[in-house]
């Protein structure tokens, strides 16, 4: 399915103003050794995110979903194609341009244990990006208090260290840091996969609440189809560095077209023995069908 088809399928939803557009993106890493072949992490990626919209990016390890998020943030090299943010080409933005961009574009990483500097107090972590943008100390302090309140942490957290918090609370700090400058887009790189089930539910609630309150857009990267279905307006499925299917969340996660997405959907177990047994049987049947199709395709070729 092409991008235009995916956007067209969403016709019923109100037209959103486009915020981020990625066109024909290619990311390559230099191979190891002299004149080694380049490793191509992403091939011909096309996505777009509207204002207040969540694009869920789902795929397995090594599918390139994290690399896509990092290239939007300027943390991975863009070898080909274009990334535009609010009409401005940011594919090769300089450090200075990035500093301006950081007001509008922020990140929440997967691991709440390594994404916060263990030596800094929570207040300092949150005030960091405010200081970069030239905010005064007293104003920054006030903003930090607001942020803690927004993510549901007590205000005495300012003078505590990251290690004094649980995983879910640390992820709240990371979300507060991303919110500090009221960005328009937050890249969320597996933000709930290191969390327990009940904590994951609370953090997802927080993401939804923030979107409702501030109208922020998310590029939400996850390996868990259930998480992506829950939080996204549209979903893109990645497989081996390419987007194999993209469209409205209910279509992609309910009635997928691409064989890989179909396999992915049926592989995720459901919490009921009898329904899981049925899903298991469906999965085996799908495998058999796809195998036969492949054989037929091979026979024709």
């Amino acid at each position, binding site marked *: 399915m092409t991008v235009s088809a995916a956007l067209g399928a969403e016709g019923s939803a109100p037209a959103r103003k486009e915020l981020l557009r990625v066109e024909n993106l290619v990311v390559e890493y230099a191979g190891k050794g002299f004149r080694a072949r380049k490793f191509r992490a992403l091939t011909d990626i096309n996505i777009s995110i509207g204002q207040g919209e969540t694009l869920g990016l789902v795929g397995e390890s090594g599918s390139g979903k994290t690399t896509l998020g990092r290239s939007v943030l300027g943390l991975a090299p863009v070898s080909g194609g274009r990334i535009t943010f609010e009409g401005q080409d940011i594919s090769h933005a300089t450090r200075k341009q990035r500093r301006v961009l*950081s007001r509008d*574009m922020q990140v929440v990483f997967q691991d709440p244990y390594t*994404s916060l500097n263990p030596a800094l107090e929570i207040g300092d972590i949150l005030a*960091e990006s405010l200081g*970069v943008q030239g905010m005064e100390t007293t104003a920054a302090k006030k903003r930090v208090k607001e942020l803690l309140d927004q993510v549901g942490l007590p205000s005495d957290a300012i003078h505590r260290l990251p290690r004094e918090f649980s995983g*879910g609370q640390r992820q709240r700090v990371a979300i507060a840091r991303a919110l500090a400058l009221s960005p328009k887009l937050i890249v969320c790189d597996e933000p709930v996969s290191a969390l327990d089930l009940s904590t994951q*539910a*609370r953090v997802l*609630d927080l993401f939804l609440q923030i979107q409702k309150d501030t109208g922020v857009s998310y590029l939400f990267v996850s390996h*868990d189809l259930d998480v992506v279905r829950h939080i996204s307006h549209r979903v893109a499925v990645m497989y081996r560095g390419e987007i194999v299917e993209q469209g409205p969340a209910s279509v992609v996660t309910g009635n997928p077209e691409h064989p890989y997405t179909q396999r992915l959907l049926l592989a995720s177990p459901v919490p009921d023995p009898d329904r899981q047994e049925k899903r298991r049987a469906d999965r085996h049947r799908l495998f058999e069908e796809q195998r036969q199709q492949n054989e037929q395709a091979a026979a024709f070729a």
Partner: protein
Amino acid sequence: MTESVETSALTPAPGTSGQTGTVVRSTVLKRLFKNPLGIVAIVILLAMAVMAVFADVLAPFDENFANISKTLAAPDAVNVLGTDSSGRDVWSRLLFGAQLTLTSALLCAAVAIAIGLPAGLVAGYYAGKFEAVSNWVVSILMSLPGLIVLLTIRAAFGPSVWIAMIAFGVLISPSYFRLTRSAVQSVRNELYVDAARVSGLSDLSIITRHIFSVVRAPIIIQTAAIAGVAIAIQSGLEFLGLGDPAKATWGVMLSEGFKNVYLTPTLLFWPAFAMALTIGALVLLGNAIRDALEDGEKIKHRRQKAHQVEGAAAASAAKAARKTIAAVEAGTEHHLVKVTNLGVGYPQADGSIKKVVDDVSFHVDRGEILGIVGESGSGKSQTAFSILGLLPDTARIVGGAIQFDGNYTVAPGEDKVNQDRLSKLRGKRISYIPQEPMSNLDPAFTIGYQLVTPMVRILGITKAEATRRAMKLLSDVGIVNPDRTFKAYPHEVSGGMAQRVLIAGAISCEPDLIIADEPTTALDVTVQADVLDLIRDLQRRLGVGVILVTHNFGVVADLCDRVVVMQNGRLVEEGPVREILREPKESYTQALLASMLEGKEPMTMLMSAASSSTASPTDKENVL
């Protein structure tokens, strides 16, 4: 939403049973001052520093004031430590010597830090060309023979302590460079550094704010050691007679004392004593800081204390239990595994015991799959490890018993898992499938070797026979080309393949019980489905009992016959899988199931909605 929400609902109020006690931490400085050696070192160094700083006031004579009429005098009221061969006061020279010796050592360390630290920071953070070039320079510096360079410099620039110490500082700067570079490399790709980059911080602020803090502690430790070496080198040069004779230093005094060693041996003793004291204190201080930074040391303390508290009665009871293994309760022999009121705890710094498993009882029969479900920190892995006997050394069984096939592996009253009894079972009758397949295969050996060796040892079969069986096992676990996998090294196979290999290993010695600790958590969801299929097939075929530790209710629904739900070290609920998943009685199980995303209306609040409808299980219609 406040912090209390984060912990309420799912955690019991403090004071109830379950996990008790807290992790006791103290700051580095506090720990440093608790270490007697650390205090001694600090006191000695402070005393030396005070003597050096106030040498002008403390010393009764000038460093070069010579009383020709009173040479090599014994200590008296005027010259408290006697005089040297020129009639100069030893005590005064010792004080002025301290001034010069200590400042020159500091100069040396300062020069080395000034060169090594920034170079290491830049090389570690940016890597690339600067790192390559600086590595060359460092290699050249390190290959230079230090003493010969110092002698050359003395010949060229004259006998100045300062020039010699600056040169030595340059020579020794590679040690700071390497230390800094490797510390920086280890954090360069940390996510918080990436987050700072996204925030638009300049490289300079990233280095000073986020990276310098990791280098600080190792630099302090290194400086303590380097200062000691600098004192020794400098004194060594002066002892050889290469120092500045017009200045009093400990090295010059040592040289002077050596010349008169037969006439007045104490002349040699005092500078040597001062040096030994200072260098020793520096080394001890470095060690004390390192110990303070590491957590390990204080745990030993605790264990001794815990033993004393236990008292002699318990010890003798345990001894008696060790001699004769008590018979298990009648009527329970038929259970494959039975865990009764098990408690596991870790002794803490303040003598208390932090309980991580409390009063847990369940059993597993042959041919049955029991799921242990819970969130992180619920004690589910600790429970599984206590059955395997693989708890860390510091862990204590604080209550209850474990029996396997009608015999106790942990009898009531024992505080440790009996390794003699378990090592006979482990690998042979109880086997284990770990969470991280890759880190559980040794990268240095082929997969075949790692499968064959345990079989030869445990089953006592020949290598050829074991190889034949390993091939069969590999094809049994669904590996298409067993021959190639047999010869492969672990890094040559994928994560899913590695997990299949570990499952092959787990069933290789025909066990009665397999303990699988989150066996599919590290795998992709499509691979997870394949591995679950494999475990189900093998379990049916071999009829083994399985304990499956997991946090995923989908995995539970796929495999398990019965389920145990754990929270904060306690067993919350136990029952057949359909009962637990469809009609959970306990509110905790209900809350856990309610936070599942499957079957929920997208873009709706989970927890706020969950509180009103926790009772309704997730048997909404299938999305397919």
